[in-house]
């Protein structure tokens, strides 16, 4: 699988955060989140820009001809505009033929695996031959600077994955899930049709001292955590059953890189051997829909992810939404 990724140059480290949040030392932030630094998009740098850079890297590193791309999928919750789709802008900027299809889809942490399913469907249905799957996010632009519950976790980034018929043959069956009753557990309340951006929105402070307005990301960590602990074991069983494989036959588990505490808990609760459970977010943070492809690219570069391995991919989070599949890398 050909994957490239792009991160903004600017970095937000734990030392800087510890100065802002009394009682939260650098060490505490690292111990609980597993994150030392996260990349932060500049003021004029958007998710679309990051996606274009990731795609350009993909084209160069893997000798993929942009003229061969016949479908662009962009997963983002940070589009350049309400309209048009950012995927249309990306088609133009990358020199992809105007005969290509292109669309945005709005998902977060589950987005990459959903994207693989969409790409597989397009190719299996003989609708497209070469899909450029992009995930790109700039959550930091939605985060209040004094909300440590999310500012310590999220980082910006993008990934580009090339999917053709050969790649499709390596992608197994999928499991999806949706629970919209949890929509408010991770949300930006304004800026959409339901409620416009409110420039005068008052700041509110929660019981933990985190400040935000309704224009900012609001995340209920405990509820997201409980949701994850509930759905991960069931989804693991279901995706194994759908792929006629046992957990023991999985060589590597690459899950959404939410934060180290959550991943450690998932690993322990599900008795996944440490050496099979890939955790890699220390210097990128939680990059939302890009976390799985970035982890895959880095795992391959480090020699942890090797050709022929059976890999379980699982994304879970905002929506609430989840998805899983097994690939033969």
């Amino acid at each position, binding site marked *: 699988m050909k994957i490239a990724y792009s991160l903004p140059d600017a970095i937000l480290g734990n030392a800087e955060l510890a100065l802002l949040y009394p009682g*939260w030392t650098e060490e505490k932030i690292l111990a*609980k989140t597993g994150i030392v630094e996260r990349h932060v998009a500049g003021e004029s740098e958007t998710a679309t820009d990051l996606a274009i850079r990731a795609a350009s890297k993909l084209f160069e590193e893997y000798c993929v001809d942009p003229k061969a791309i016949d479908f662009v999928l962009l997963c983002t919750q940070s589009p350049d505009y309400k309209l048009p789709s950012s995927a249309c802008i990306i088609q133009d900027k990358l020199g992809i033929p105007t005969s290509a299809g292109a669309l945005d889809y709005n998902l977060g942490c589950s987005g990459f695996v959903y994207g693989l399913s969409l790409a597989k469907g397009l190719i299996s249905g003989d609708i497209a031959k070469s899909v450029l799957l992009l995930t790109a996010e700039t959550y930091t632009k939605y985060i209040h600077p004094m909300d440590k519950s999310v500012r310590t976790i999220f980082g910006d980034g993008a990934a580009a994955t090339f999917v053709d018929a050969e790649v499709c043959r390596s992608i197994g069956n999928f499991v999806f899930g949706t629970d919209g009753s949890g929509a408010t557990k991770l949300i930006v309340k304004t800026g959409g049709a339901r409620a416009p951006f409110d420039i005068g929105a008052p700041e509110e402070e929660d019981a*933990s001292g985190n400040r935000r307005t309704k224009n900012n990301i609001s995340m*209920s*960590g*405990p*509820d997201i*955590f409980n949701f994850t602990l509930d759905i991960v074991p069931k989804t693991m069983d279901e995706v194994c059953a759908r792929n006629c494989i046992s957990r023991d036959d999985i060589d590597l588990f690459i899950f959404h890189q939410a934060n180290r*505490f959550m991943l450690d808990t998932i690993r322990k609760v599900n008795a996944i051997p440490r050496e099979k459970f890939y955790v890699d977010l220390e210097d990128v943070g939680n990059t939302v829909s890009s976390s799985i492809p970035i982890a895959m690219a880095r795992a391959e570069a480090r020699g942890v992810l090797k050709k022929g391995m059976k890999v379980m991919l699982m994304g879970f989070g905002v929506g609430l939404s989840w998805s899983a599949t097994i690939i033969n890398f």
Partner: protein
Amino acid sequence: MNEMIEKIADVLDQDATGLTAETRLDEIGWDSMGMLSVIALAKTNGRTITGAQVRGFETVGDIINSAF
């Protein structure tokens, strides 16, 4: 009781000495990370603490009553 307090102290990165069921959480640095730690502790004991519940905790005793 002592064993439960030891476990709570451990997940909250606190010294167990001096912790009692009456200890107020806001006096020992209770925060969002502490909430997740307590939820995880409950899970290992086969119990579930919801977000609404954990946000209402005020004392170590509240954790004891829900996590064990």
